[in-house]
């Protein structure tokens, strides 16, 4: 009978050890058998020590370089926009919040213009127009949303301008980013437009500026 307490203590110890969770191993459901593991992990060594000598590292990298790089996986959840192939682009409407997907051909010039507008044209226009003060000027992008404009076949970006003293708001469509640059530079009292292609005098575009702003500008010389 004297051994009964020892049996009880031993039993409790066994139960305790069986229930104890290891500190570093997870407690996930077991999906594979011991045989599966043995079959798939026939790797001689379980340990790998890091290399610190630069020469040794470079030799290893050289060997690695002889193998082809793995197929690229586009990891969408990175914080920055990945460059998408230019035959498909999405547009999110700021009014209804819905998304429209566009597709075109890489060699199609209409598609290239559309892609340009959607990829960065719209928000570039908005950012440019933020530099303009003292005039009501905005873009109308509603044609790009399939939900807001379901029957538009060829969407265009439009400009809405209302200058103080004018009764009506001027609306002109099929505008480009360059058009926006022209009027913002003009309204900021610049005399030339500087782009990646060089510097051009705004005077060369006076008719277009006039058309965009819906007003006639007197550019005749006084004798």
């Amino acid at each position, binding site marked *: 009978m004297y051994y009964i307490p020892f049996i009880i203590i031993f039993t409790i110890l066994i139960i305790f050890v069986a229930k104890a969770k290891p500190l*570093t*191993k*997870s407690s*996930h459901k077991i*999906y*594979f058998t011991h045989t*599966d*593991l043995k079959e*798939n*992990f026939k790797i001689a060594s*379980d340990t*790998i*020590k*890091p*290399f*610190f000598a630069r020469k040794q*590292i470079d030799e*290893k*990298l*050289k060997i*690695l370089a002889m193998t082809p*790089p*793995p197929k*690229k*996986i586009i*990891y*969408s*959840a*990175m*914080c*920055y*926009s*990945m460059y998408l192939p230019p*035959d*498909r682009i*999405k547009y*999110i409407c*700021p009014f*209804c*919040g*819905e*998304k*429209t997907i*566009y*597709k075109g051909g890489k060699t199609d010039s209409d*598609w290239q213009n*559309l892609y340009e507008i959607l990829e*960065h044209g719209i*928000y570039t226009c*908005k*950012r440019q127009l*933020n*530099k303009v003060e003292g005039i009501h000027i905005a873009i109308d992008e509603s044609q790009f949303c*399939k*939900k807001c404009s379901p029957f538009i*076949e*060829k*969407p265009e970006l439009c400009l809405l301008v209302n200058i103080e003293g004018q009764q009506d708001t001027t609306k002109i469509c099929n505008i480009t*980013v360059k058009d926006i640059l022209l009027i913002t530079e003009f309204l900021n009292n610049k005399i030339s437009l*500087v782009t990646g292609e060089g510097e051009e005098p705004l005077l060369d575009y006076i008719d277009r500026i006039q058309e965009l702003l819906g007003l006639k500008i007197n550019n005749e010389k006084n004798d």
Partner: protein
Amino acid sequence: MKKMTNSISALSFLPSSVVLEMTYECNHQCLFCSCPWEQPHGIYNKGVELKCDEWKTLIDKLVSMGVCDFSYTGGEPLMNKNILDIIEYTSNLKVKFINDNLEQIEISPNQYLITNGQLLDESILLFLKKHEINLSISLPGILTYRHHTKNGNPEIVLNWLKKAKALGIHTTVNITVTKLNLFELYETISNAFIAGANTLLLNRFLPGGRGMLHLDKLSLDKKEILLMLQIANDVLKKANRFGSVGTELPICLIKENEYSNITVGTRCSAGIDFFVIGPEGRIRTCNHSPVQLEHFTQIEKVKQNVYWKKFIEKDYLPENCKYCNYTYCCDGGCREAAHVYTNSLYGDDPVFLNN
């Protein structure tokens, strides 16, 4: 005759990729951790973690709305004891997807597990192989690993990279670069690729979470960021491998340099290409953001949320960038990091404030 533009309404307004933060818990105490709930005196409201069935309901909802890429993170996702069950559940779903011909087809979701690797075991690797899950493992240094993480062992990470390679699992080594581990970045990246990593995801330390307590120790200045990119590109070029930087950088910082083997982005894609759902089920624009929007059960309301719309419309350009000629291709650096650091979404990227 007007030519018809090929277009179709998407299944929903949601980005096609989601990052699911499976738990607040973690077996590391990383100095650089940007999880917003770890920020002392932060605004993040830690609610009750979702249960397994709730995660499945959430994933069903996202799949029905066209989300097709699922990344599991945390905290440490393997601390969620139901993670494998949830991954398996997702693997068996079919997502409606708009293909390149603008036809609606059904595909299997793409899944990614982002982990510190310390809780991996062979059976989990086999599971990942079976379900074609991409594995991303964190390696914030080798000599400085333990100093950064307070727990764990870099050799364990290298071993899992080796074993994953043997099984044919696609692996990404995820390296957060700080002032403390920059000196060994060459060795860290090299060892990860020698062990078997397929690609590199390089993250510069950004203020947020627990990292707010260690800003002086960890923050990289402009020169250090350029050095980080140069080192990474050098190693990748030598190894004939490729990688990318995980957060956008201001273009004025990098435009004089070219990187042949590492992709550096300059535009924010939060809310556009991806979004985040926290452990309690609330939606955020990105994992750096402490701003919690609607709960997933009210997901439709997010599209009219004022804060969400700022990201959709890219209405967050810093005041100092307003007159820059590159605003067509640059958002002035990481917006949420700027928000956390300066309390304003229109603030400068922290790199401009660290010199």
